[in-house]
């Protein structure tokens, strides 16, 4: 499937036409891969569009992947739903605030998602029904550069896929 996707993308090349491209040969040689076109959008944006609002948001402290006590009731509630409905899948997306390195934040966000997965599986939910993904600082819910925004962006979002 992935190979097919690459094939599709590689068919979508268009020549770039920069206004200064009269000048060098390189310009005509470099090609733009555009994956914003509608034909590829279903692949490019895909499932995240269909997920809608998360069922639960769990928040974290700065540079931390430890679950907070205040998240306990939400997590236990989700655990009950998942145990009662073994056919459901839970998608856990981890996120980080904008500060520091993007790659470190990606790793940190994945650890946050995994912390949720570990808690739920230790509470009896099958780990095979939980998927995790990290988005680092790439998908903030708040754009401000202040603690109020950062605290909302350091989160894990839980989506129930029925």
């Amino acid at each position, binding site marked *: 499937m992935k190979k097919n996707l690459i094939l599709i993308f590689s068919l979508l090349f268009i020549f770039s036409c920069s206004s200064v491209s009269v*000048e060098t040969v390189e310009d005509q040689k470099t090609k733009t891969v555009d994956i914003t076109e509608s034909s590829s959008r279903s692949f490019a944006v895909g499932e995240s569009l269909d997920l809608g609002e998360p069922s639960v948001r769990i928040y974290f402290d700065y540079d931390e992947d430890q679950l907070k006590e205040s998240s306990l009731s939400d997590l236990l509630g989700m655990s009950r739903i998942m145990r009662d409905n073994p056919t459901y899948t839970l998608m856990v997306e981890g996120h980080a605030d904008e500060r520091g390195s993007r790659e470190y934040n990606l790793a940190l966000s994945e650890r946050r998602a995994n912390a949720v997965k570990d808690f739920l599986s230790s509470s009896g939910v099958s780990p095979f029904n939980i998927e995790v993904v990290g988005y680092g600082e790439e998908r903030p819910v708040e754009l401000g550069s202040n603690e109020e925004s950062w605290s909302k962006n350091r989160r894990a979002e839980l989506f129930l896929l029925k």
Partner: protein
Amino acid sequence: MRTIFLLFIPFFLSSDLVLEITRGAEKQIKLGIIQTDFTELDATQIIDVIKNDLERTGEFILIPSTEMLSIPTSPDSVIHRDWLLLDADAIIFLTTEKLDKSIDIAYSIYDIRAEKIVLKKKIYGVPDGLRQSSHYVSDGIYKHYYGIEGVSSTKLMYVAKNDDIYRLIVSDADGFNEQTLLKSTQSIISPAWSPDAKDVAYVSFENNRAQVFTQNLETGTRKLILSSKFSVSAPAWSPDRKYIAFTSTMDGNSEIYIINLDTKKIERLTENSAIDTEPAWSTDGKKIIFTSDRSGSPQIYELDLRTKLKRRITTEGSYNARGSFIDKNNIIFIHRNSTNFNIATFNLQTRQLQVLTNTEFDESPCIAPNGNVIIYATKEQGYSMLAGVNISSNVGFKLPALYGELKEPAWSPFLR
């Protein structure tokens, strides 16, 4: 060639990068540039490129032709008093030679105080390569004065974000010849050049998780380096081009791996319950530095690829990440001491840490191939843009986007 020149657009009109010097050099070299041939070719375009290249280093002042008291037609006819009055250090004499499909540029540096030519060089042109030839002249002049290779003839790669569209862009170091490599509705991070500058690697979230693609600049062909349902990120090409080091959670936790691009054989380099990420190769390819929070906070570690021994490098500060080598003995990284995230260097021998920036949210540091110019991403009034520091001269500059945001800069290797 004539008609092509008529199509030229004034500087920066079509470019996303507008350079502003934020902190100048203490001593600047003052130059006049004069075209001495009277062929049909007007060298104004060449002179403009060179002027712009040199002035944007912050280490040169160019004398406008309108301010020149006399305009010599050759080194023999220089009226020295006129140039000493302007406090000029030298005159650059340019001669162009128009060939069938290309233009050669010969230049000489005439030192006013020594009253003689101190450097004479010729750049052989390639078809449609006049701007690039002009950049080579700039780099030659730069090297003459500072003993360091100039980087005007290199390229920059960066991510531009406008209206929720991400574009991975490659441009000349002066912002010209902007080429979009990838246009996506999803984030693109961690762009990296192959050592021969023919390919790039980057992380794209287009399939709703971090994946590393390589892309050939000439053909646009994209390849996924590794198909995985887990995240793959932080690509770094080995100096011999054979391997890409990367981070993946394929074994359950962020670990560092290298993949042989020919055999696709993967080797795992770290095994640890903490975050290990952001691998960067030493210049000789024998070591990798990486970020790990195994001590409780992110710090830079070094891994010897032969012995597999790891040792911690940074100890100062609560946050040290995204390290890369400047040269054999120096690394550059993001450093947090109190509240700000800044760019710092560390000498592996003297163990001296030096903070180079003073804004709040500096990230993604990258070193130019001459080892002397750092470019990084920073924030001003909520918008991300690029900024830089010249290590030897301490000149600071910024490159705000004309619209939208710029981030994740990656300087190309030398293209010669």
